[in-house]
């Protein structure tokens, strides 16, 4: 459970820093950042929901019968790339969602790959339905955390955070407290 959490929060942090250019105060760009977060959150949620059963199928139908379990991580990464590209193409016309950054596809890919591999290794899904649920769960969890974090940061802009703690440090502390809160869920999921 806690390793799941750490990976989820880690991806939230990475996504957020990818959205805001680190080291800058952005008083006027709030909506861009939040819209970007909505874009990444929804893309990741949809992507994981699809990726998880897809990789389950590949695993059960191709890798295991062929005794190539050792290829699983590599194949999942490739599937994640595929998924990211498809999503990017599908989302392309949602201009207000999709931040037109060069790194967007790459971020989505890494996100998908990382979370996808994590799901595979951590939550051993026995059925296709379980795989779908695990993917959707992680995706929605990631989306909720990222959006909550992005709007927390937006609210934080008016706060008189001490100079040396502005931006990245306070963001890290916030993520830390969020992790602390989520520690309360330990024991709910047996790994």
């Amino acid at each position, binding site marked *: 459970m806690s390793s799941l959490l750490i990976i989820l929060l880690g991806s939230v942090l990475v996504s957020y820093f990818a959205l805001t250019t680190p080291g800058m105060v952005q008083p006027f760009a709030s909506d861009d950042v939040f819209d970007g977060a909505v874009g990444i959150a929804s893309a990741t949620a949809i992507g994981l929901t699809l990726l998880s059963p897809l990789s389950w199928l590949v695993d059960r139908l191709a890798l295991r019968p062929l005794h190539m379990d050792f290829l699983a991580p590599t194949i999942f990464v*490739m599937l994640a790339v595929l998924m990211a590209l498809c999503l990017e193409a599908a989302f392309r016309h949602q201009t207000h969602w999709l931040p*037109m950054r060069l790194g967007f596809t790459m971020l989505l890919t890494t996100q998908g790959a990382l979370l996808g591999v994590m799901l595979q290794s951590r939550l051993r899904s026995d059925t296709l339905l379980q795989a779908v649920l695990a993917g959707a769960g992680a995706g929605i969890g990631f989306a909720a955390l990222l959006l909550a974090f992005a709007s927390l940061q937006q609210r934080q802009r008016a706060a008189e955070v001490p100079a040396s703690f502005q931006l990245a440090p306070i963001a890290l502390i916030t993520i830390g407290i969020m992790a602390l809160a989520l520690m309360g869920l330990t024991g709910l999921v047996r790994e």
Partner: protein
Amino acid sequence: MIVAILVMIAIGTVLAAVLASSSSTAQRQQLLTERINERLPQTQCGRCTFTGCKPYAAAVARGEADINQCPPGGDATAKALADLLGRPPKPVDPRFGAVLPRPLVAWIDEPACIGCTKCIQACPVDAIVGASKFMHTVITAQCTGCELCVAPCPVDCIEMRTVTDVALS
């Protein structure tokens, strides 16, 4: 082993195909141009060395122009573009013109106007009305303050004024 290699090759091929088909850069640039254009002040003054805001946006999208070439938008626009494109912000390059604190609009000294229509042709937003041999006038509400009409006037009867000055005169 051979099966593994074959599977990898198969997946690789599919990936390559998708990559090739999805990376249509033209479409991507068109969308990026649109998003950049949304952030420009639409003065259409051409001080950025392009003929208008949209051409400048296209040039930025292609990577042929920098984000700090828009004096009417000032540092705010440069910053908005920096945020959009994920680049470090920079102030407007003074080579492209000075950033004015208050917007100006064109004003025609109507008695001096000879009705040559040169300014009408120069105006990028059709904000000057008048006909050949007749006096011209600026629609203040539509004027973006691009100053493109000032130079063509053969009798130098156009000048830039603040909106309040124009309203008073």
